[in-house]
Every structure is written in C-alpha cells, then in structure tokens.
C-alpha cells in the first residue's frame, strides 16, 4: 500500500540553525501539507501546497518557514533559523485531487529537537 515517507525520523539542531525536513508524498497525490504537533498538544496545520504554490498557510507559518517541491517526488519544509519553540513532531500529508482535501494521508513524522 502506498504511503507518505519522511526523513529524517529524528533531527537535533542548535537554535539559530537551518533545518530541512523532507517528505515523499504518495505518488499520484497532488495536494501536500505540513502539520506539526508539539509534545502533549494537538496537531496544528502549517501550510498546504498545490500546483507548485502555497494555497493556504497558518499564522505559525511565518517568514522563517518555507516549502518547496524541488523535483517530481520530494516536498520539503525549511526552517531558516530555528527557535526553541520549533521543537515538535512535523508531519507531512498528501491527498488526491479527485478525492479532495478531506482524505489527507500522513507520514510517520520527523521529531525535531532544538537545543
């Protein structure tokens, strides 16, 4: 069964450093998303991406964040200058165009720890 994959599974970084989190969405999906989950809190939407551009973003997704689809398979989230409060689990998700936004399939996540 096709699934969303994410790398790395864990990342430890120093405050102020740049990190890139990588995702490979399900191959025939056209909508891509990033969510995050701070430990003990609910899953929160960051950004959605379609047709090579951001279609929606939350207040969390400020100028420190960016997303990119560098090739036909990868989807990345970059945090330019990490803060302590960026420590969280980051989930990538994707959905098919015809099924719609309600069927978003999530990857296993990248656990980011900012020291």
């Amino acid at each position, binding site marked *: 069964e096709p699934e*969303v994959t994410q790398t790395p599974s864990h990342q430890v970084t120093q405050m102020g450093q740049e990190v890139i989190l990588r995702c490979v969405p399900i191959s025939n999906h056209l909508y891509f998303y990033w969510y995050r989950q701070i430990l003990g809190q*609910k*899953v929160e*939407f960051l950004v959605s991406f379609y047709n090579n551009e951001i*279609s*929606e973003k939350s207040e969390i997704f400020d100028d420190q964040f960016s997303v990119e689809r560098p090739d036909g398979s990868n989807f990345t989230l970059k945090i330019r200058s990490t803060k302590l409060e960026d420590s969280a689990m980051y*989930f990538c998700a994707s959905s098919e165009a015809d099924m719609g936004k309600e069927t*978003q399939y999530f990857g296993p*996540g990248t656990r980011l720890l900012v020291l």
Partner: protein
Amino acid sequence: QKEVEQDPGPLSVPEGAIVSLNCTYSNSAFQYFMWYRQYSRKGPELLMYTYSSGNKEDGRFTAQVDKSSKYISLFIRDSQPSDSATYLCAMISTNFGNEKLTFGTGTRLTIIP
C-alpha cells in the same frame, strides 16, 4: 470557545466492550469530518471520513455525525487490545481556499485484555 473540543481521556475499557469517542465543534462551516488513529510517536492514520449527518460503518467502526448539534462520534465494537491508541477527530470547512484540517486534542484509549 475552542473550534473543536474532544475529551482527552484517558479512557480504559475491557476487551470486547463498545467504545464511544466524541467531539463537539462550534464552526458551522465544518462540513467534512474525519477520525484518525495515532499510535505513540507515529503519524495519524486515517480511519474514516464522512460529510453527511447520520452513520457510516466500516467493519467494527461506525462514524456518526449530527450537524444540528455540532457533535460527532466514533464507535468501536468488539474492541481489541490493538485498538489502544489516541483517537483524533478532525474537521475541514467548505470555505473556498480552506484546506486545513482542524484537529481535536485526541482521546487516549486503552483496551484492557
């Protein structure tokens, strides 16, 4: 008032029991409703989705939506130890350009053998 409210539990029931998990919401624009299961330190796994009031069944799982009361439920019949996980409700509106899932806090469920 939070957009989506979900009792965080924890909820412990004996194996074989029927489990009822619930969420309420305040935003009338929410029209699509999903239930995800999340095992510890894993990604959310889509269990069911529905967009109409009433019941939708899939094996041992039944999703129920009552839009007039802004209340959704997930029922698990013949619960198994492997059902032990955190269950997240999620919703999405039909507003143009809105694609984000809004999640509840999750209910941690333990099925006792």
